[in-house]
């Protein structure tokens, strides 16, 4: 499995299929017992390179409560850059930027325990972003957000991705793969599919891999078979609506 710089890759699979294990390999938190894992050309088996790898690949974990170190929001975001030994001004700049991007600027001085679940998850993302990584890995990091919060977070990721950041999202929400360029499907610790998003949506491949499709996928296929929708349209609500309107106007 190869991930090029600037790609957005979604990893889907059932519980226990090895998604989180895969994610931890990208940051050298776990080392391969068999085979090899190269991150930015660095072999993760060489422990002297771990620092360099972790500087460039940030991770956001599932439970934000277990990754918050400090008791004040801005101190929490500063933790990563402080570990990099940056200057005080640089750290402040990064903290303000990360809090702005994640919409937490007004909470900078708040105690971390006073934040809601969704805010804590955004704080965890801010902490990862403040490292200014080349790649960000989200391990089911949207699980505690409400639909609106999830959409906001996806918008943030999209902006970062458009700016050239490589994004890897581990998810069990199939809707979320629609933002990505590539999809990896895991099953029982093995990579069962890895390819372009278009390929996985075609011929309902997901069902073949034992992954339940969301209703919108089936709806989209239904419309396509009835000729109400063009074949190349992805099952995103906005795209579908636009295409249907276009078709009707024609």
């Amino acid at each position: 499995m190869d991930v090029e710089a600037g790609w957005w890759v979604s990893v889907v699979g059932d519980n226990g299929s090895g998604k989180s294990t895969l994610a931890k390999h990208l940051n050298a938190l776990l080392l391969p017992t068999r085979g090899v894992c190269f991150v930015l050309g660095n072999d993760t088996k060489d422990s002297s390179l771990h620092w360099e790898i972790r500087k460039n690949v940030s991770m956001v974990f599932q439970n934000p409560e277990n990754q918050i170190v400090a008791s004040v929001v801005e101190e929490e975001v500063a933790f990563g850059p402080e570990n990099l030994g940056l200057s005080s001004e640089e750290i402040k700049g990064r903290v303000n930027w990360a809090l702005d991007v994640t919409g937490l600027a007004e909470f900078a001085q708040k105690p971390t325990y006073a934040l809601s679940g969704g805010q804590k998850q955004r704080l965890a993302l801010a902490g990862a972003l403040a490292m200014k990584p080349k790649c960000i890995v989200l391990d089911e990091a949207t699980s505690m957000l409400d639909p609106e919060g999830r959409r906001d977070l996806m918008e943030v990721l999209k902006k970062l991705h458009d700016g050239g950041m490589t994004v890897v999202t581990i998810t069990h929400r199939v809707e979320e793969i629609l933002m990505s360029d590539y999809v990896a499907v895991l099953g029982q610790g093995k990579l069962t599919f890895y390819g372009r998003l278009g390929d996985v949506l075609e011929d309902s491949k997901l069902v073949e891999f034992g992954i339940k499709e969301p209703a919108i996928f089936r709806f989209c296929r239904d419309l396509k078979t009835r000729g109400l929708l063009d074949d190349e349209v992805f099952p995103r609500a906005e795209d579908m609506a636009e295409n249907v309107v276009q078709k009707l106007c024609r």
Partner: protein
Amino acid sequence: MPFLEHLSLGQYVPTQSFVHSLDPRAKILSAIALITSVFLASTSLWPYFLWFVVLIAISALSKLSLKTIMASIKPVLILIIFTVLINLLFASGEELFRIFFISITKEGLAASIKMGLRLLFLILFANITMMTTSPIELSDGIESLLSPFKRFHVPAHEFAMMMTIALRFIPTLLDETDKIIKAQLARGADLDSGNLIKRFKAFIPVLVPLFVIVFQRADDLAIAMEARCYRGGIGRSRMKPLRWTLSDGLYLLTVLLTCASGVVLDKWVL
């Protein structure tokens, strides 16, 4: 979080004042000096007036009312009363008067007043430092003060990091304990009846899951910290580095001089 309302560990009162803006090291060192001198100067009672004046001065400079500061001794009031009583009742010496079989001696009375005042000032000076210094500043200050001892293998950074994490997890674990207690109550656990041993035994089903959660959290946190390039104090910088200014020096010097004059006057002059 109902537990949190009664929690006075985080005593920090955030306001803008001269004392609040001081370097935490100046405040920690002043507190140590004040507490030491309170214990050194004890031949007569008058130095306590001096400490009281110091207390009023600090309270004025920190914009905290004397009432707020005094209120902070509430949780340890029992301890003070207990100490005073022990000193009063169990001292031998010249008898002043007698209530039934308890004799109150002159030495006992003097010792209990001194002991009570000592404890009172110890707690007040420690509390005023906690009330004017945020937990982060406090741990930064301790780390910085301990750093000269690093060459003797004193883990200054690790100590400060432990303190930061402990403070961060207090509300989380209180919340967790609350949840477990409610879950056990919902399943019919009886936590508050019977004698002490019975109650402790009933509490074990709360402690076991709590410890499991604590270890799980510790493991997750360690991984998350490692993922964020944490490798101990090596090569670590600070967003808000401590800066020692002239006013910090002057404050510490004033406190030190006051302490020294108190001790000297008490021991040799008066």
